[in-house]
């Protein structure tokens, strides 16, 4: 009997977090999109009403996902992945150009953005490949294949162009690390990021000096214990310096001015409030003016005045900050942290490697979106246009994240059915 009860046990903590975020998202989209021209509540042209439709259809999707047999996802993961890749490629032929990006299929008044669904497909394919008994993450061949699975969709997304969505695939480094990928990959990524920001911030000369100082300190510490491999350190130093130069080169010659601007604004090097930094600046003003409890729902002056562009999509968090204040925005941050940690705990208790890898994938993708979006809106990171999961306006985005999350809810629930 006990087993039977657990058979049907869905993780309600996850589901409640999901519902709370979706609800918070909708009331803030309502505030951010409310306009004088609204013709009553049931006006399909209003953004908040469309989002309501997306939410209701998402609930249908959830029932459908939960109703399917959990084995379906593992078995058909390759097919789902291939279909997803095809849909990304198809954009180059059938895609509709919106605001200079060909990221959409258009079906009448409804648009679908395949990159939002490709994340779930990639997570499934990754889970399938890594959990394969043949795969050994320590072998270079398998490492390369894994890399390919992740990189292919990203490569198709970049030229849309939608570099923000492509960047999300970097998040898959976390499930791979969990499955035994050498820590050196994570470390290299981390050092590369440090060198990148450092070079832009203080310039090549200072970075070279710092590299030498840091390496010398490590060298002197190790000297006491082991024999020193001078060649190794020379290579590391050369690599670091080479990377530093290449950053400078890429930044100044490969990057376009708008990319440079975005970085410079966050690094505080150029303050241009009416120009390129306008979005971030207005978003900071909106959030900053919220104080403890905010200006109240529908009372945000920044929100009402449409000072923050894209406020119902990528910048929705600024509405939350303005109208609900510190308490409101900290609640949303808390909900995300809670949900992601909950997913990590669930992933760890999965019986199958497939479930665990997929669970880690879900948590990593959600975290990456949360990290980049809130960082951007609060002015900590450069402007990278990706939505805040479950909260930002958009059908494809909501459906994509719902599918991503509830496949895992289903996998988790069926751990106990198939024992």
């Amino acid at each position, binding site marked *: 009997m006990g087993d039977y009860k657990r058979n049907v046990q869905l993780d309600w903590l996850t589901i409640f977090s999901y519902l709370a975020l979706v609800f918070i998202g909708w009331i803030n989209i309502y505030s951010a999109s409310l306009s004088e021209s609204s013709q009553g509540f049931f006006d399909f042209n209003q953004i908040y009403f469309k989002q309501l439709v997306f939410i209701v259809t998402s609930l249908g999707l959830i029932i459908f996902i939960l109703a399917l047999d959990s084995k379906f996802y593992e078995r058909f993961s390759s097919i789902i992945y291939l279909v997803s890749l095809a849909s990304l490629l198809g954009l180059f032929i059938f895609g509709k150009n919106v605001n200079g990006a060909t990221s959409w299929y258009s079906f009448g008044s409804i648009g679908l953005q395949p990159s939002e669904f490709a994340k779930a497909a990639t997570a499934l394919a990754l889970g399938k490949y890594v959990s394969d008994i043949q795969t050994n993450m320590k072998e270079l061949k398998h490492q390369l294949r894994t890399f390919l699975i992740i990189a292919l969709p990203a490569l198709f997304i970049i030229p849309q162009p939608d570099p923000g969505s492509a960047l999300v695939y970097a998040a898959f480094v976390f499930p791979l690390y969990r499955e035994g990928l050498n820590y050196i990959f994570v470390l290299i990524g981390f050092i590369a990021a440090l060198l990148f920001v450092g070079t832009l911030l203080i310039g090549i000369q200072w970075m070279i000096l710092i590299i030498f100082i840091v390496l010398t300190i490590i060298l002197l510490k190790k000297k006491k214990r082991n024999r020193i491999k001078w060649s190794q350190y020379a290579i590391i130093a050369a690599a670091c310096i080479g990377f530093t130069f290449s950053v400078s080169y890429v930044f100044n010659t490969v990057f376009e001015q708008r990319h440079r601007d975005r970085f410079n604004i966050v690094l505080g090097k150029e303050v241009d409030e009416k120009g390129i930094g306008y979005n971030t600046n207005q978003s*900071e003003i909106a959030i900053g003016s919220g104080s403890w409890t905010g200006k109240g729902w529908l009372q945000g002056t920044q929100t009402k005045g449409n000072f923050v562009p894209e406020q119902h999509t990528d910048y929705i968090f600024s509405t939350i900050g303005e109208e609900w204040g510190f308490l409101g925005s900290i609640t949303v941050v808390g909900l995300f942290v809670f949900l992601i940690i909950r997913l990590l705990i669930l992933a760890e208790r999965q019986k199958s490697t497939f479930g665990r890898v997929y669970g880690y994938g879900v948590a990593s993708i959600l*975290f990456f979106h949360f990290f980049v979006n809130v960082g951007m809106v609060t002015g900590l990171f450069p402007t990278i246009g990706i939505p805040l999961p479950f909260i930002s306006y958009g059908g494809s985005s909501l459906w994509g994240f719902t599918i991503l999350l509830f496949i895992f809810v289903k996998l988790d629930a069926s751990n106990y059915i198939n024992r």
Partner: protein
Amino acid sequence: MRKLLLLSIVLITGVVFAARLFYLQIYDTSYQKLSENNAVKVVYNYPQRGYIFDRKGNLLVSNQPSYDVMVIPKDVKPLDTLEFCKLLKIEKEDFKRILEKAWVYSPRIAQVFIPQLTKSEYAALSEKMYKYRGFYIQKRSLRNYHVRHSSNVLGYISEVNERIIKQNPYYQMGELIGMGGVEKQYEEVLRGTKGVKYIQKDRFNRDIGPYKEGIFDTLPTRGNDIMLTIDADLQQYGEELMINKRGGIVALEPKTGEILALVAAPNYDPALLVGRDRSKNFTKLYYDTIAKPLFDRVLQGEYPPGSPFKTLTALIGLQEGVIDLDERVYCHGGYRYGNRTLGCHHHSTPLSLIPGIANSCNAYFATVYRRTIDKYPTPQEGIDHWREHLVSFGLGNYLGYDLPAGNKGLIPDSDYYNRAYQYPKYKWYTPATISNSIGQGEVSLTPMQMVNFTAAIANRGYYYKPHIIKNIVGADSIPEKYTVKNYTTIDPEYFEPVIQGMFDVYNYGTASHLKIPGIEICGKTGTAENYIRVNGKRMQLTDHSVFVAFAPKDDPKIAIAVFVENGYWGSRWAGKIASLLIEKYLKGEITRKDLENFVLSGSLMDEYSKPYSGEPFKINQ
């Protein structure tokens, strides 16, 4: 370990975001102000400024609409400049210059392009205004003067300067405030309260409706009208009589302290400080450093009072008991002290108090003054007692009237002389101050102070503080300080002989030719010696002509002081002017047309130009 990497990154991220949000939302409060500036526009709604009436209800000042052409430089689109300039009556170069200046100031802020159009200019322009993007017409309310006199009483309004804005947060750049006169004194009554509207803007700076449904908005409240104690007819007549003369006239109603007329000459037409030529006119008035039309001689001018001061010397002597009415004092061409003489003019001698006043005998009053001071063991104590009596007449300090200009005058005390003579290194005695007895020497009074002591004499021992406010619409009463009697230190019985003396000034004394049939006037002439410095050289000028009077003798309805700079003897100008004004006020018309014509056409401009001519000149001609 591998399980913990992402977990710890997630937790750290949560903490970092919480800290960032705390910084933005709680710690750094500047964002609140920024969002307000961003999204809320404050629009003020200015009420009508209160009207100003005279004591009889004649409208002196009302409002008129004025139209400013405003520009928001950024919004200006190419236009038919030729036509536009023609409508505004400006040159094309002016157009370019003003627009460029506006650009430099701010491309986004609305600024005045051409201020204060006339009605006809406005009518011609308003039809075509739709063609000129970036320009619009703003209606303002300006003062409309129904009289051409009283500019020193009324004051004027002008835009607030930065000092005022700093001191008083009510005012914003470009708003108007009363400067000088009752416009300044009763600014808060007259201006009312401006209304405020908060308007929500969008990021294109467009209005999108009231902020928070207008719960913070307020309606303007209209300024209150005020009624002045000024008698416009008397005021106007006074100003006419003072044409081509310098000095001041102030008339009071002794029973109330109400100011009936307050003439400062030279004066200017109040309408000069309204409209497009305002600043040009103001500069002209401001830089006239010789005639000083902006200097209110009647409130700020400090003059030696001359002989009218003798009435006070007499009153103090009587109060101090150093003289009685019967004692007669000899005068042999003046008062001798030591080896010096305080000169006097020809009159019969010896004289007692009443004829002493009527004939203005210097020797008599010098004697009384000296006895008053010497009654006390030291001249210091004597002077201080003497001063105490004078202070009780409102002299030697600000009077407390409700106009924002004035001076203290000077009634010296013992400290003053101690300093001047370096006491105790050197000693000083009463004769050193003897000129005070006849209103020369160190004492100086403003014409307003002179009329105040005259009113106190008329009232036989008390005065009301002079004031110009008769009634504030919507207020029950005027301030209490204007409705309480201020008693002098002199007992009422001592006033009658002095008043008799002032009456005899008209009967047979120094102003006997200025009698008005049917009115019993009491007065006192004055001829005040005075000096100025021109290019560092001290020179004596023709005496000031001074006169104080009240009438009728037993039921005083008007007290008046007239001061005519360099008008020579008292009855030559000041006495005549006082006589005409009393007749005008009490009888409503002038019977002595010859006298009136003499004063109206008389000019002292030659006299005034003498010291600046660079040529040697003779005084008192």
